[in-house]
């Protein structure tokens, strides 16, 4: 029965169930084109979930995702006239700034990240409102960003390839480097890590910066995908990103979890939400359904703990 409590296994079963239910209602679900489309959508969530997962691994949480993503997209497309390097660079700077703000609050000021990152989120909302005046932002992303966001190479969406590279990097970092070990150590017990000579505050700030950059990247790529940046474009990503991480088996209290699980969680969430939209479930029903799925899956994993 142990395998039935393995998050990756449960999520895989979830994917199969969703695919089967979808396939019975709409046979075209199994076409290569549909699969590629779903993977393309999953990649954006995947990049956002990467940041969310890293932060959750060290026992914090980054709720500044929605407006950091939006601010990066808006500011990056505002600078698109000056070439792709500056445009992307400025967008990533937004992510860096957000990450530094989050990291310094969590690591130096020791304010719980759950509330501090919400305040950072609010600051970036303020910045977006301030620079756009609350209106539709001007400017379109550069051609190269559009190519990455929506273009395809040999039939595979470029953004999927981008996510694959990022995933490879993260998996290697987490499992093969000292830094990766330190992340798990800080997440399990920060005090012990500190006493073992790990510079825990540096690790925390670095992780938040990585998360900020992931959020900014998602925003920039999304603006390439939809050919523009718009207000509140990040709102639909926060809860799915955290849900994907948790459904993928990463412990919300930090210190354990695998990136493969997050990938599977992201694909499951994307598949599920596309099935719901194919079935024309209204927004209200979707929210309710998502809530139940998160609760059901996390409860099924957490029973593992009692057995030990």
């Amino acid at each position: 029965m142990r395998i039935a409590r393995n998050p990756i296994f449960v999520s895989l079963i979830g994917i199969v169930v969703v695919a089967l239910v979808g396939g019975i209602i709409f046979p075209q679900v199994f076409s290569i084109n549909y699969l590629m489309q779903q993977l393309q959508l999953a990649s954006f969530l995947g990049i956002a979930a990467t940041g969310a997962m890293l932060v959750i691994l060290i026992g914090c949480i980054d709720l500044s995702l929605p407006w950091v993503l939006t601010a990066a997209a808006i500011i990056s497309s505002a600078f698109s006239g000056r070439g792709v390097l500056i445009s992307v660079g400025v967008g990533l700077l937004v992510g860096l700034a957000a990450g530094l703000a989050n990291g310094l609050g969590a690591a130096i000021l020791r304010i719980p990240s759950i509330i501090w990152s919400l305040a950072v989120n609010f600051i970036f909302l303020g910045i977006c409102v301030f620079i756009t005046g609350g209106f539709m932002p001007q400017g379109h992303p550069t051609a190269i960003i559009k190519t990455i966001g929506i273009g395809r190479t040999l039939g595979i969406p470029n953004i999927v390839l981008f996510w694959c590279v990022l995933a490879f990097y993260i998996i290697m970092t987490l499992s093969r480097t000292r830094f990766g070990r330190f992340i798990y150590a800080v997440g399990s017990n920060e005090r012990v890590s500190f006493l073992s000579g790990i510079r825990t505050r540096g690790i925390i700030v670095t992780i938040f910066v990585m998360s900020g950059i992931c959020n900014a990247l998602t925003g920039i790529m999304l603006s390439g995908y939809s050919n523009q940046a718009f207000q509140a474009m990040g709102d639909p990503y926060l809860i799915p990103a955290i849900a994907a991480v948790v459904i993928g088996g990463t412990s919300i209290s930090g210190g354990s979890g695998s990136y493969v699980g997050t990938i599977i969680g992201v694909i499951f969430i994307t598949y599920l939400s596309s099935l719901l939209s194919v079935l024309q479930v209204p927004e209200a029903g979707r929210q309710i359904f998502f809530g139940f799925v998160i609760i059901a899956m996390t409860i099924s994993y957490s029973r593992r703990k009692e057995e030990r």
Partner: protein
Amino acid sequence: MATINTSTRSSWLRYFLRRNYRAIIAFGILIMLFVAFLIIYPVRFSDNFFSAWANQGAGLAFTAVGQTLVVLTSGIDLSIGSIFALSNCLASVFLNGDLFHVFLAFILILCAGICCGLVNGIVISYTQIQPIILTIATGAIYYGIALFIRPVTGGSVNEALSDALTYSVFHIPTSLILILATLVLFWVLMKPTRLYIGIYAIGSSEKSAFMSGVRVRQAKIAAYMFSGLFASLGGLFLSLQTLTGDATIGMSYMLNSVAATVIGGTALSGGIGGIFGSVVGSYLLRTLKSIMFFAGIAPMAQPLFEGIVLMCALSIGSIRLLGMKSKIDIFR
């Protein structure tokens, strides 16, 4: 803690100050801000001005009290905004008609809030699931239900009731009387009970509380249930102010309720603080917002300023880091 037992008045006072100094500082700042607001405000002080000021913070104050009870157990209720929005939407549908119907609607809405809180509390205390994740998930569910009831902003609320509860009696705003009466009643009834002490005990150390015979599950369920109840009271009051229902207001109330709790002197790690501080915290936040409005800051810059103020308020708690003797104490 030995000073508690000595019964001289000065030691009692010292103990009181030590337990509540954060809330007292917040109260001092609130009074200063209120005076500043009076100076900036273009019209002379009047009953209307006073009750408008009191109404502005009332919805948040109720919600923050609910949040505080959960934070005291070292949990957090991120679904509190959704419960708030849900009761706002329910009020915009049912809080209408004659006195009997209004009364029924009132009970219905409070029951809905209690049920939402009970679900949170029961699942958290009977499973291993973390409060953050569970309340994010149930928050999505409650938001979904609110959206189902009110897909777009609208509806109406009994205006006579609204008038009765949002003006003032004997120069004192009705909303302020309502809040204080509710809280004093709640405090007098709950303070001596094992349940209320249990809520504090869990926040200090759940293991020790359990071993000392505190009914941990019962206290947790109660905290989340009261959180739901106070959130729905807040939602009800907002409906009386705006006379409409809006499913999307929850997010800002959720954030502000946590901020007000922290500003009012409750530690997010649990066990320290109290409900009255959170009322002060809520009014402090709302007064600041009004001051910014009247001080002539450009409307488009206001959210940014609000965010900066929020961050500064949250950083105040970090001063305690300076007083730590050992560097190791900084780390959890």
